[in-house]
């Protein structure tokens, strides 16, 4: 489980490698919050190499989405496989987040 970050001006891209769960959600959340504190306003989280997400991981995304919105920015999620899509649909969080097939799709108009 690891997070690879790229920063280009106010665009932050975080690639999630493996699970986003109770054991690493604080690390993930703090990593993004630190970047938002330093001016990141467009935040893209890429799950193309991700595993499953539990309620803690979902909660971290919800919390970050709120914080980024408050700063006038936007959070986009990309690379969700069919299982992760199901998870977002089950919890109705697909209505909250901007979801994209691939990272390249999420970058269009961002």
């Amino acid at each position, binding site marked *: *489980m690891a997070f690879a970050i790229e920063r280009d001006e106010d665009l932050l891209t975080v690639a999630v490698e493996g*699970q986003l*769960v*109770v*054991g690493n959600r604080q690390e993930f959340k703090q990593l993004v919050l630190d970047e938002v504190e330093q001016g990141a306003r467009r935040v893209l989280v890429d799950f193309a190499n991700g*595993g*499953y*997400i*539990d*309620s*803690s991981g*979902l*909660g*971290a995304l*919800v*919390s970050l989405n*709120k914080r980024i919105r408050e700063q006038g920015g936007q959070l986009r999620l990309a690379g969700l496989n*069919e*299982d*992760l899509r*199901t*998870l977002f649909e*089950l*919890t*109705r*969080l697909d*209505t*909250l987040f901007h979801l994209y097939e691939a990272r390249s799709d999420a970058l269009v108009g961002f």
Partner: protein
Amino acid sequence: MRSLVSDCGSGESAPLLEWTIASDVREIDAIVLAVTGLCESAGFPRKACRLNVPVALTEAIANAIERGNGGDASRVVRVTARIDDAGLCVEITDEGTGFDLAAARGVCDEEDWTEREDGRGVFLMQALMDQVESHCEQGHTLRLVLRRS
């Protein structure tokens, strides 16, 4: 066929995997990996192995560690897992006094559902498993059942 639920944890019908861990969320991954591996070997559908089982089991163990045992590392969580012809049955036992499953289950219709950070764990367990039961007897046990069909 014998009832999966009545067999769960009885140690009779199928090999039993068993762990006793300290209340530390870093202990969760290894158990989830072992149980999903067991499911894969037993021919469970891909989605069950990649979504239903790992997410529900992570929720249940995290709940036992953080709420049941209050994050007290000196308290332990016991996990047993068994697969038979009927399906998977996992029991997670903590040292707490349990909780009301119905009351703890959030629903998507609640006003702040999409804004809250916590409160989706029981909902997810119930959405991803066929059966979730809670009972107290020498600690609190949560039982998760996923049938093969």
